[in-house]
């Protein structure tokens, strides 16, 4: 008996894979499974080939598999595209009559789901619900659980629509029960109940983290894969008194959050590489004016427009260096949904404490992949404020915005709260914020913005996660979204000890920790979704350590468990 399965629903854009995918996620997590799901989609609204991939298991999971156990093809074009990526014994469900496919494959299972949808619901639109029923029937989920999910998915729609979707699901379920006797996929599912378990993706977690952190102003220009952060915050903007403003371009977005932050509110933007390129000057402005900002860079393949809806980790060096001039910054690279949440809160605190730009670097894979988490996983992170309070402001009459201090951090007052005026300037400036050409002041200001703040930030670095490293035969090293695949490889490979180290903060770089962790390692491989081995280069630059090699993937697709195991076997 297997204890995990991979399920795919595939069709063309506009066929509703996301709706059925969300319904399946809900059904499985409420019948006691752990889930990991993502959507593979093209940059188009209709047509093409998209698929929703869902992995379920009786233990926590963090990544995808290479092959599918059950694939449901909703259109003819999906069949040749997906028939070769089935597991041994896998089943590809197709509608031979509808697709006019006569060829035979051992994996093919013909189910006339288009006819069933039309017969039961009166429209082909119900094929998704039939598919839900087919999957539930194959796995042995109770019919009642499928019906429950149909009710939840279509809540708010008319009774008739809910009834038709339930009947469509039942038709698929019954058909499989009567005609498909193979029990390979029968995993014991629990009775459906509301477990309180949450299902969210990385962008949801960042949006929730920002709300929790007290973000009051969010401005962005829509860009995949960052856009849903804006959608989620906008959805709750009224409830939490947040202003979400869609800017005319990314230059406006970054300058708007700087303006809001200067006026005293916590502010954030999110974009992807191309939009971030436009923000680079603004990043430098935030550093020079010492205005805290939080910028999410959700990476996708580039150069230029690249693969708009796919994944990459190729902007590490860009984010580390973006913005002209020298200044302190922080770059986080969360590896899980829980970490995306907690790091977002920390990003706001650190940005405010050090009055600097702070980056949260993710990618399409983390942004769009769903996992089940517990509500208690979102208890980490507390708001810490670093401004002169309104109460304390009343007595301030002789204020210097850029006062020299040992830490490089000047007390940050809010305009109109203090009994004095505040000058902020993008030119080199005096302690009072006025433009200067003075060499001595220029040197001291550079030291304030660069060395002194960096020195404080180095004391507050997120420690790398080290797992199975001691005595390991091989150590994998990654940042950001590769956490999940490295962890599962480490657990899954039993004939040798494979450990991993994950960095959820890449700048300031935890150099001494990395030297400590890697000094006795036999073989170290970085695992990166880029072509340059950028993390390997960063490690070498900051520690002098050279890795044994890098497992690089730069085809716009994420790593998965089987793929990474194959690749490291080839590395010896």
């Amino acid at each position, binding site marked *: 008996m297997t204890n995990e399965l991979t399920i795919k629903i595939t069709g063309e854009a506009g066929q509703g894979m996301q709706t059925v995918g969300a319904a399946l996620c*809900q059904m499985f997590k409420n019948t006691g499974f752990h889930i990991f799901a993502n959507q593979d989609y093209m940059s188009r609204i209709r047509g093409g080939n998209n698929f929703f991939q869902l992995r379920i298991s009786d233990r926590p999971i963090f990544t995808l598999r290479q092959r599918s156990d059950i694939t449901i093809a909703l259109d003819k074009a999906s069949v040749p595209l997906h028939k070769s990526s089935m597991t041994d014994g896998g089943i590809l469900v197709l509608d031979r009559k509808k697709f006019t496919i006569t060829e035979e494959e051992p994996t093919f299972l013909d189910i006339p789901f288009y006819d069933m949808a039309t017969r039961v619901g009166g429209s082909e639109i119900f094929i998704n619900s039939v598919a839900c029923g087919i999957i539930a029937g194959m796995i042995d989920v109770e019919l009642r659980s499928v019906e429950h999910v149909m009710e939840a998915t279509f809540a708010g729609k008319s009774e008739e629509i809910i009834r038709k979707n339930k009947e469509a699901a039942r038709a698929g379920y019954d058909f499989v029960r009567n005609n498909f006797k193979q029990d390979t996929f029968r995993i014991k599912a629990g009775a459906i109940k509301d477990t309180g378990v949450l299902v969210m993706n990385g962008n949801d977690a960042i949006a929730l983290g920002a709300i929790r952190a*007290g973000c009051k*102003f969010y401005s962005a220009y829509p860009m995949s894969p960052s856009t849903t952060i804006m959608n989620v915050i906008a959805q709750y903007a009224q409830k939490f008194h947040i202003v979400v403003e869609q800017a005319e371009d990314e230059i406006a977005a970054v300058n708007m959050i700087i*303006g809001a932050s200067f006026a005293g509110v916590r502010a954030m933007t999110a974009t992807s590489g191309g939009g971030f390129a436009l923000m680079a000057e603004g990043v430098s*402005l935030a550093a020079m004016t010492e205005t805290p900002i939080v910028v999410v860079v959700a990476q996708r393949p580039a150069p230029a427009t690249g693969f708009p809806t796919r994944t990459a980790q190729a902007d590490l060096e860009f984010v580390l260096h973006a913005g002209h001039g020298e200044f302190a910054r922080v770059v986080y690279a969360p590896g899980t949904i829980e970490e995306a949440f907690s790091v977002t809160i920390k990003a706001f605190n650190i940005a405010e404490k050090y009055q600097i730009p702070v980056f949260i670097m993710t990618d399409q894979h983390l942004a769009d992949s769903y996992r089940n988490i517990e509500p208690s996983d979102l208890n980490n992170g507390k708001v810490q404020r670093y401004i002169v309070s309104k109460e304390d402001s009343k007595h301030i009459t002789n204020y210097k915005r850029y006062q020299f201090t040992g830490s490089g951090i000047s007390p940050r007052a809010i*305009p*109109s709260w203090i009994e004095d005026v*505040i000058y902020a*300037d993008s030119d080199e400036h005096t302690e009072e914020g*006025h433009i200067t050409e003075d060499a001595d002041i220029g040197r001291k200001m550079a030291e304030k913005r660069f060395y002194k703040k960096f020195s404080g930030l180095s004391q507050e670095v997120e420690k790398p996660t080290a797992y199975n490293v001691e005595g390991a035969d091989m150590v994998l090293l990654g940042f950001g979204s590769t956490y999940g695949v490295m962890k599962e490889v480490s657990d899954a490979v039993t004939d040798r000890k494979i450990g991993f180290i994950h960095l959820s903060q890449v700048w300031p770089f935890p150099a001494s920790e990395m030297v400590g962790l890697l000094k006795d390692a036999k073989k170290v491989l970085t695992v990166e979704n880029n072509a340059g081995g950028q993390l390997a280069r960063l490690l070498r630059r900051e520690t002098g350590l050279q890795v044994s090699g890098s497992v690089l993937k730069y085809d716009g697709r994420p790593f998965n468990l089987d793929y990474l195991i194959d690749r490291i076997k080839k590395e010896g």
Partner: protein
Amino acid sequence: MDIKDFKSNDEIAWCPGCGNFGILNAVKKTLAKLDRHPKDILLVSGIGQAAKLPHYVRCNCFNGLHGRALPVAAAAKIANRNLTVLVTTGDGDCYGEGGNHLIHNIRRNTDITVIVHDNQIYGLTKGQASPTTDPDYVTKVQTEGVILEPFHPLEMAIALGAGFVARGYSLDTEHLSWLIGEGIKHKGLSLIDVLQPCVSFNKKNTYEWYTQRVYKVNDDGSYNPEDKMAAYEKSHEWGDRIPIGIIYKTEKETYEEKRGLSQGVPLVEEQIEDIDITSILSEFT
């Protein structure tokens, strides 16, 4: 408040005789009449000679990037509606580098006052054409004369639905101060294009040139600035006669009003220490 409450000790870096002095005096005169403490006023600027003005006035100042004053100003106003926000910018900063922000901030309509020092030339970079340089004017770069159609800020602003569109002249500080005051009083974005001679690099549009041409449109009551079509025509007038004054004016709902930011505490005073998100977590299942 008195004009000396707005006195800054910064050394002024403009050329002697620069048209900016008249604008500086008008701004200070207006601010003194507002009855607002300097700490409640924010001047935002970008880059250029006009962008230096905030340093010559004692009030809050954010001197940011070239072309980017408007997004900073709009967001600062959104964050704290108690600030009186003015932008001092130039024809290069606002109509060139920051043109997109001008377009969209007119649409956004936050309650800010935008004063454009329009000297029809690039001063700080020493004499290249600006978006408003007259056709055929010869510069070191436009060696055969300007061939591009000039940018028409007032016509564009009216077309975009701006609620307050005006033109001033830096030599007439009384009139300009009145205009800026009306701009601040107007709820929503006010655009005030200010004719301002560049004594170093614009040899055509001099004090004499402007003085011979400008006339005030609001003095005798014959002109109705609330008539949009008339305003559109008036804004197009350029040559032997150049109108100054309030060209177009209409009441509009501001961004803050539409967003519900006019009531309750300003965003900046919201408590953020303990925001409870548990009530929305059930929607992520």
